[in-house]
């Protein structure tokens, strides 16, 4: 063990002498600190803005005057997705998904106002997020410092001396690896502080710890890869070129290839197209605005027997309200079925893309990081599902108010004159049916489970890199 530390220390001493590592660490730290700070400010600004919009939307709904209940169904409600605490490190898909949904009766709207539509378009490849810097740029810095770790010893001829003096090949390689690992870990300091901050604003401590750990694994993978490349090459320039080649492939190429492959393998129809299929299904169900639609004959017959009435005027409930409730129920079932199919499709696409994580540590840390931070596709889907649950709940509550609290007679005469219109209203206290919407990302346990596979991918990459080192250690001098 002592020898390994000695070698690591010696590597640090070399970096300090050439000032190389110092420059790299300073550049890396300045960039990550800047990005953590700016990104935290932006995300907390977004959080406040969306919280504020949510509160004012809630307030506006509750403050609506006395009305016909169905008018409130169409008045609708807005929900906004608030970002998760760890999104200050990894905003994930946040910028690419809409963050607001309009909820109303009879339809499921898509999320609106994705940030990317509001950006300058300069950040399609790069982004300010600490996640981008750590996932894409940090390996580059490790390469710039570490490419010569072994080749330098070879070029100077010191490697033979080291080994003949009894420093084992493994110890030499592990020592160099440790030096790079400690260097990379220093670049993770801003991430560590950001994660601690996230714990203070409500993130689970265990999860934040694992979040940092996954990045540490990532640093380890790159440190091992760089040492390995340096050990199989004779010259510094080839070690550098090969490492950069690996970096291009892992960090830039494979993620995009994964995305394009997923889109090509599983083309998805898009919402607009599936909307036609939805419409087809819905037409069969009948229009809930028109109570006399033959589609509701069965409902009418059932209600008449249930209440032992001769005609719908005699029913103790408002038949139009009953129809609205009944048809919303059926319609939602169809809508949900299609929405689930679509989300399932999107998730399958994403999962195809994430499979490429077995080939690229960058993609696996990306998936793991987003899953842990609660900024991946599943979180967005969760938002859509929760919004839909809220929509269904308040629309049906309003329909029940319509059924129970507004007489059928007053209802059908609502357009006759001003006084009948006044009668076809219910008290605004009924709008209290709306429950407050507060979006939280999945529970920590759930996110841990979801990130498990990507964690495995990271471990696999690390194991693979170590195997490579092990295999070449024996032939180091040849």
């Amino acid at each position, binding site marked *: 063990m002592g020898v390994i530390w000695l070698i690591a220390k010696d590597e640090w001493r070399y970096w300090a002498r050439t000032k190389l590592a110092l420059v790299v660490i300073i550049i890396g730290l300045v960039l990550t600190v800047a990005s953590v700070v700016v990104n935290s400010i932006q995300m907390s600004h977004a959080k406040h803005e969306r919280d504020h919009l949510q509160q004012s939307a809630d307030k506006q709904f509750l403050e609506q005057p006395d009305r016909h209940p169905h008018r409130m169904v169409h008045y609708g409600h807005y929900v906004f997705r608030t970002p998760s605490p760890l999104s200050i490190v990894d905003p994930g898909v946040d910028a690419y998904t809409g963050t607001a949904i309009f909820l109303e009766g009879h339809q499921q709207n898509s999320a609106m106002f*994705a940030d990317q539509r509001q950006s300058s*378009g300069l950040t399609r490849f790069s*982004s300010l997020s600490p996640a981008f810097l750590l996932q894409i740029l940090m390996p580059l810095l490790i390469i710039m410092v570490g490419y010569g770790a072994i080749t330098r010893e070879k070029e100077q001829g010191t490697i033979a001396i080291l080994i003949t003096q009894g420093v084992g090949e493994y110890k030499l390689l592990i020592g160099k690896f440790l030096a790079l690992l400690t260097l990379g870990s220093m670049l993770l300091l801003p991430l560590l502080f950001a994660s601690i901050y996230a714990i203070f604003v409500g993130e689970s401590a265990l999860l934040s710890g694992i979040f940092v750990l996954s990045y540490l694994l990532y640093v380890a993978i790159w440190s091992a890869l760089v040492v390995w490349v340096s050990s199989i090459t004779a010259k510094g320039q080839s070690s*550098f070129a090969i490492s950069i080649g690996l970096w291009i492939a892992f960090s830039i190429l494979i993620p995009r290839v994964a995305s394009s492959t997923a*889109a090509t393998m599983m083309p998805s129809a898009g919402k607009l197209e599936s909307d036609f299929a939805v*419409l087809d299904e819905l037409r069969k169900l009948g229009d809930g605005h028109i109570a006399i639609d033959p589609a509701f004959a069965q409902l009418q017959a059932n209600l008449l027997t249930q209440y032992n009435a001769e005609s719908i005027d005699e029913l103790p409930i408002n038949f139009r309200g009953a129809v609205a409730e009944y048809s919303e129920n059926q319609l939602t079932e169809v809508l949900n079925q299609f929405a689930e199919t679509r989300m399932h499709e999107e998730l399958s696409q994403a999962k195809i893309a994430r499979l490429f994580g077995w080939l690229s540590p960058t993609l696996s840390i990306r998936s793991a990081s987003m899953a842990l931070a609660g900024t991946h596709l599943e979180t967005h889907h969760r938002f859509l599902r929760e919004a839909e649950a809220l929509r269904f709940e308040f629309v049906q509550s309003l329909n029940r108010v319509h059924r129970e609290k507004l007489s059928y007679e007053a209802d059908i005469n609502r357009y006759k004159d001003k006084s009948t219109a006044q009668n076809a209203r219910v008290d605004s206290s009924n709008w209290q049916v709306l429950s407050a919407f507060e979006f939280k990302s999945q529970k920590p346990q759930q996110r841990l489970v979801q990130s498990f596979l990507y964690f495995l991918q990271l471990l696999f990459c690390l194991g693979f890199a170590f195997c490579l080192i092990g295999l070449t250690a024996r032939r180091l001098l040849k």
Partner: protein
Amino acid sequence: MMMLRDLKRESKFLAKQKPLWALLAILLMLSSFAVYTGVNEIRQQSQTLERLLQKDRLDREDVLSQQTDFGSAAYYSFHLTYAPPQKIAFAAMGQRDVFPWKHRVRMLALEGQIYETDADNPELTFLGKFDFAFLVSVLLPLLIILLLHNIASSEREMGRFDLLLVTAKKQRNFVIPRAFIIICCAALVLILPFITGALVLGTDLTSSLTIGLIALGHLVFWAFLTLFAGHYGNKRFFSSARIASGLIGIWLLLTVILPVASDTIIKQSVTSPNGGEIVLTQREAVNDAWDLPVESTWRDFLVSYPQWSGSTNMQSLFEWKWYFAFQQVGDQKAAALSKRYRNSIVRKDHYASLVSWLSPPMLSQRLMEKIAHTNVSAALAYEDNVRKYHTQLREFYYPLLFNDTTFTEKTLTQVPEFSPLDIQD
């Protein structure tokens, strides 16, 4: 002067360089993959549009056949609007995955509809598409750096430099022919798949040529930069790795740091209303109208359409003309916000275009997107086209509603058709 003899000698030498062959093969594969997915994407988008157009027509015919008055016809019928992909967009998919290019609209308040998106899978969009423009603007510089940074310095490091200087007399006698051959090969493997894609889709010559030239221009820029850095570094006995590190630093500055920093500054300096405010304003205006005295709706409506001032009397508490009038008023009330929202997008794009002059990678990407009509301006032009069409719809139905025209199905055959923007100027 570069002699044919030098070229011959250097190509013989280069033909034996395995790393060179490997890099060129990788570039060829990448370029082919980018073109393949691009062509595929264009085909998918065109097929999607064909299916949508057909379904849309059938759906509307079906809906209209069940209507008995113009108000319901306007209320229930949707119209597909779209911006078909230009064929050349296979090379630069640009912003089409973020900005919508297809919408179904109806005659209700447009501000409530136009921000709906039928966006692609956000996680795939986040990972990014691998198109030709991305290859050229982001990856190509790195490959060029790897190919060319050590032409001179590797000879020195191998200890052959002095020998070569003796035999080749002047340094540029071997450096320049060698670089020339490598650049030509790289250009060839980059462009060949692109030409194939252009031929397969039958894109028009001008835009294909321009995109090809931009790609080559960007390649030459990085080649010269790399050769210059190589020459400069070699004279000072820098190692190849050090030269490449410096070049990658420049790449980092131009491709990552400059765009990200300017994006942050642009975001701070251009204030924009939150999109949520627009739709909230529109919704309040539309919903308040139900409870407001009808006169107030008419007053606001007649500001835009004074010609109907004589036709605003109502027989019942609900009439379609009043309903559509307050939809129009909803749009009017949100118009100022909507305009500011849109202007902020235009201004951000404008600043981005200024910044891109400092960064060749950004510049080449933006130029390609411009030619492919996949940039922000193209997305906004499509939005304008949707607005224009929506106005046409209103102006078709208003006379029918306000004049109490007797309903005939034949009149409905004259509903204006959406026509996509004609880009072949």
